[in-house]
Each structure stands twice: as C-alpha cells, then as structure tokens.
C-alpha cells in the first residue's frame, strides 16, 4: 500500500501537464456554469461605477495586452459594458506598458459600442498611449488635455465638435472613478493622480497580485477591486442581478463567467497535485522509517 503511494512522490511532469491541459481545456468544449458569490471589493467597485452621474466620466488606464488578456479582457469588457449600457462616458488611455494596449482596448470599445449603440467622441474616447509614470499621472490629474493633445484617431482633444465628451473634462476632479486595468497596476496612481486623495481609484488586476492591494483597500485609498477573472465574473454577476435581460441580451455568456470555469478546474488540479505530492512524501517517509 505505502509502496504504491510512494510512487506519487515523483509524478512525471508530463502527467501534470496533460491533466491540467484536459481540466482547463474541457470547459471550452463542454458548457459548464458555476455560480459565483461577489466579494465586497467587487461590489464596492460596481456600486461606484453604477452611481456615476451623466456629467461625470469613468476614466480607464487600460494597459492590458496579449499576455494578460486571460484575466484583464473580461474585466475590461464588463466595465465597458456597464458604462455603455448606462450611458456613462468613458475616457480610455494607456500609460507606459505595451504599445498595442490602446488597440486591444479599442477592439472591445467598438464591439460594446455596437451592442449598445454608442458613438465615438460622444460616449467614449480613446486617447492612445503615453509614457512617463509617475509624473504623467500627476499631469493627467491636473490637465488631461495637456498630456493627450490628440486622441487615437488624431482628433485634437480640445476640439469640442469632434470630441464633445471632453468638453468640461479637465482633470481628475471630473472623474467619477479611475480604473487601472493591467496585470499589475501601478500603485503610484494613488499618490500622484490626485494629491488630495478625493478621486476614487479602483484596480482590476491579475488574481495573483491582488494580495498587494488589500492594505490600500483597508486604508480607503482604493475604493474597489476586481481580482482576476473571478472579479470579472463577479462583476458580470452583479450586472446580471441589476440589469438582467438588458445586459444578457447583448451578451448571453460574458467572458468573465466563461473563463472562470477553466480557471477553477485548473486550480482544482493544482490543489489535487499538491495533496498527491504530500501523500507521496508521507509514504516515502513511512517506508524509510519501516526500513530502518
């Protein structure tokens, strides 16, 4: 018995890879739905966006790209869908990070805008990418248009005919919330964007780095958070609870909920192999002891 279990001490890595491949791959072919229970950080972020008046904008620093799309795409899509559904204005930009980030964001913006009938320049604007954090963060807070004189399409940001959305939007005092969405958002947003600390800031990041954000949540510097794809699925769940058919008609199976299933199965495989490994170690120890 112990001899058999001792074999679990050294499982071939190919077996681990194959098991994970099947566990994470299967949900893409078999429809499985998993209910989620929103955490309070996600609820706080949702409520903040949901309470946005029409004259304010939601600003998003979208730095997610190909590498982090597994977690960030769903998060970004949920926020954009929420804002566009509620006719909340969106100002999107990228700071540092990958040069293709604005284009990735714009693909989602255009898809959601088609679903909800929104118009570029009126309901959303993509300001493109700039560099120079953290000084640029402070400049965005003071004067957004000085940092982005033109948007991604080349329109001047002070051209109120082409971009009426930016009329009256000067800096952080006009933001209902600033979302920073990327694998690991920059904590400097909380220090530099608004030195008075009155502009609400929320992060949407990969699940693995969320541990670092909890001190900022408890201090109140960060008003909400989306933790990985779980956070996206929770946000979608909150949208579903509040807007039901109106939200689901545009996207019956949103990305967050869809990707949560392979992630959960992947986690189960990892947990299972940790337990298997420990069982193997225990068996080896037992065998050694009995041999002595």
């Amino acid at each position, binding site marked *: 018995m112990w001899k058999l279990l001792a074999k679990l001490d050294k499982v071939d890595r190919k077996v681990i890879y194959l098991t994970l491949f099947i566990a994470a791959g299967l949900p893409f072919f078999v429809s499985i739905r998993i209910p989620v229970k929103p955490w309070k950080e996600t609820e706080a972020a949702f409520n903040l966006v949901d309470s946005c008046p029409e004259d304010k904008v939601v600003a998003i620093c979208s730095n997610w790209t*190909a590498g982090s799309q597994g977690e960030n795409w769903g998060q970004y899509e949920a926020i954009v869908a929420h804002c566009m559904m509620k006719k909340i204005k969106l100002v999107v930009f990228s700071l540092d990070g990958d040069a293709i980030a604005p284009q990735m964001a714009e693909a989602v913006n255009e898809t959601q805008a088609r679903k909800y009938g929104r118009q570029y320049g009126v309901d959303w604007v993509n300001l493109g990418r700039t560099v120079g954090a953290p000084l640029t963060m402070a400049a965005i807070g003071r004067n957004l248009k000085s940092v982005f004189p033109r948007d991604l399409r080349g329109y001047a940001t002070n051209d109120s005919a082409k971009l009426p959305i930016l009329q009256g939007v000067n800096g952080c005092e006009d933001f209902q919330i600033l979302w920073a969405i990327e694998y690991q958002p920059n904590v400097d947003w909380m220090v530099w964007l608004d030195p008075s600390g009155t502009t609400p800031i929320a992060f949407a990041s990969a699940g693995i780095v969320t541990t670092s954000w909890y001190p900022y949540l408890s201090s109140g510097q960060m008003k909400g958070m989306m933790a990985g794809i779980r956070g996206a699925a929770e946000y979608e769940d909150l949208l579903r609870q509040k807007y039901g058919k109106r939200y689901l008609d545009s996207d019956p199976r949103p990305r967050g909920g869809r990707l949560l299933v392979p992630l959960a199965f992947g986690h189960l495989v990892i947990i299972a*192999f940790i337990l298997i490994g420990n069982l193997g170690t225990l068996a080896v120890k037992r065998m050694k002891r009995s041999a002595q």
Partner: protein
Amino acid sequence: MNARKRLIAFVTFIAGLYFVLEFIVPPTVPLVTVTGVALSKRLPVFQLETASGQNAVVEADPSVTFYVLRRSKSGTFEPKPQRSREIQKGQIVTVRTRTVTLGGFGPNGERLDSNGNPIVLRQGEVPYTTDGPDTSLPVWSFEKLMGRVGPDGEAILAMLDEGEAINIEIRDAKVADVDRGQIVLKMNGESRTVPITDYSVIMLNKRRSQPEEVEMHSVQVGDTVSIGPNTWLRDQRDTATQFYAVVGTLALGMGLISLGVVNIRKIKKRESEWYTAFLFFGAIVIGVLAGLGKYELTGTRSRAFSDIIVLQVINAMGSSIFSLLAFYLASAAYRAFRIRTAEAALMMGTALIVMLGQTPFGMYLTGWMIGTFEFLQLPNVAGWILRTPSSAFVRALQFGAMLGAIATALRYWLNLERVAGMGDD
C-alpha cells in the same frame, strides 16, 4: 572623475532636486501670501486691439476663455486654452467671449438666445460656427460657402436657424492693457483689499482636500482663499512632465537602434543563426505598418491589416507564451509544496484555503455552513486571511522596501552609488 560621469551626476542631481522642490515648494510665495474670506471682487478686464484696428474690452467672467495659438505635433497652429493670469500685455490672443444657442426673435426683430435674451455683438466680436465644415471660419464665411451670403454679423444671426449653436470670439487680438482686478478679504475681523498683479495666484482652500488654483470668477463670497505671487516652478510642471515623457520615448528609440546595430552586425559577420536578423527587420517593418494603420477608422484596409497583426497574430502568440506559465506553475506547486516543517504546513494550509476560497468550489464545499457558522465558509475565511493578516504583512514589507528605496534613491541622487557604464570606480 571624468567629464561624462560629472555630466551624468549633475543631471541626476538637478532632476532629483526638481522632484524634491515639486513636493516642497508651495504654490505661492510664503510670508507675502494673504489668506482670508472673500467678501467681494472686481473681475479682471482686458483691453484688446483687434487685427482690423477695433478696440474691445473683455471682462474675464465665467463664459470667457482665452486661447493662445500653439504649433501642434502635425505642424498646424491650434488654439490652446490659457488661464487669465497667463495672458500678458502685448500678447496675441483669441478670446471666446461666449457660446450661445440661437432662439427666436424679439419684438424689434433682434435675435434672441435660447433663454430669450437679445444677442448683442460687441465691438470686435465675430460669430463662428461650432459644427460646420470648418470651425475656423466665421459664420458669414461659412454662409458664403453654403451660398447664403450675408452682409454682417447681426444680419447673419438673423438668417441662422433656431437651435444652432455659435461661438462668439475675438480672434488674433493684441492685449493692449490688463487690469487684473481685486478681491476684498476679511482677515482677522478686518476687511482688506488685495489687488491682483501679473504674478498673483488665487488658491481656493478646501476643508477636505488640498488648496486648488482657481480663476477669479470662480471665487464666491464666503470662500476662504489665499492670494500671493506664484512660485515659477509650479507652472513648469506640465513642461517637466512632457520632457520626462520625451526622455522615456528616446530610451525606446535607443533600444530599437541598439537592436538594429546588433542584428546588422550579425548579418555582416555571418554569426550563428544570422538569418534570424532578417526576421527581426521584417517584424519591424510589419510592426511599423500595423502601427500606422491603428490610427485609421474601422473598415479601412490599413486598419484591417493592423487589427490582423495586433489582434490575431501578436495577441495569439502573446497569450500562448503566457499560458505556458500555468503548466510550469502546476508542476512547481506539486514539487515545492511539501510539508516538511511546521512553517511549510502553515503556508500550505493557508494557500489551500485562499485558493479554494477564491474559486467557486470553496462555496460548494462549505456553503452548507449558515447562520452562526457562516464565517467559516471558505470564501469568508479566505477573505479574512487576505484582508487582515496578509494585509498587515504586505504593509510591513512595503514599509521596509520603501525605506530601502529612499536610501537607494538618495545614494543615486548624491552620486554615491556605482552605476553601470560610469567608469571603474
């Protein structure tokens, strides 16, 4: 110390000094700054000479915006909004005195705005379209283009449709004289008139946030304001930020040049796998073409090409490479998480709770615990671990790391740290 090292040390010191000063220097010069409660104000008045020789007087009320022409990235001149205190005597400015939406007509045939007030064009003022084919043209030029020729501003106003919005502006006028106005403050129980000068900054003190610079017209009776000469450095913050961004972009370009040089050398010397250098240059060309296309509108060929490269090719390759991490992670977790000591057992137990608590399976396993024992549900336990003990540890770690970062930054700033490429000392 050689000249290059001296130069780098000097530039580093100046840059660091700027950072320190930005935090330390207040917006107005201390000792000569006065603070009190606003009782009354007289708004700034600008005397202008228009290009056609007319004189105009503009009071800087909330509807007025000043613009100065600045050359844009594309080489064209574009109006850039300015604060009224930045407008100096002798400067050429454009002033948008108001934007009005046209209403009907008054009893004497005069044109009214949407509120029913008559629109009276003052000397030097010209109505401009807000949404015509070219907003740089006055209304009558636009009307000429459209075949609706009119003799003057008032007549054109009469011809436009109800509901149309127009900007009334004085363009390219020279500032002949400026009266910056004054504010009467109540200080220590006494009224004091504070004249505003060319260098005055008005800061509105807020109860729950930092003081904010405001225009004179924003000051309301009862507001607590501080008025004093500006510290020049604060006004240069946006310029410094742009410089910082340019330096960052230059670094990117230098990286590209360096890669180019390395790959050219590879081809010239026929180093091992030299043919891969051609792939590099090919990728650069495709990347540049895709980058140019991203500015085009959806539906155009260049945008479609750009989307294919970015969303179909780079996206797929990037996520494929990143997804490999999951397999390494699973393998590493299997090998590393072995209970050999009590600490390892504690770590593994915590990791399992947090991991299970963050997946929906945590709820499946412990969802039956309700009422008094609901706090023992795995998501609740995982949440508590993350919000309380883990949060405290992270905070402690960050304090330590930041103290170290400050010490290192000081060493760099004072040139006490060895830097790569700065010589052998």
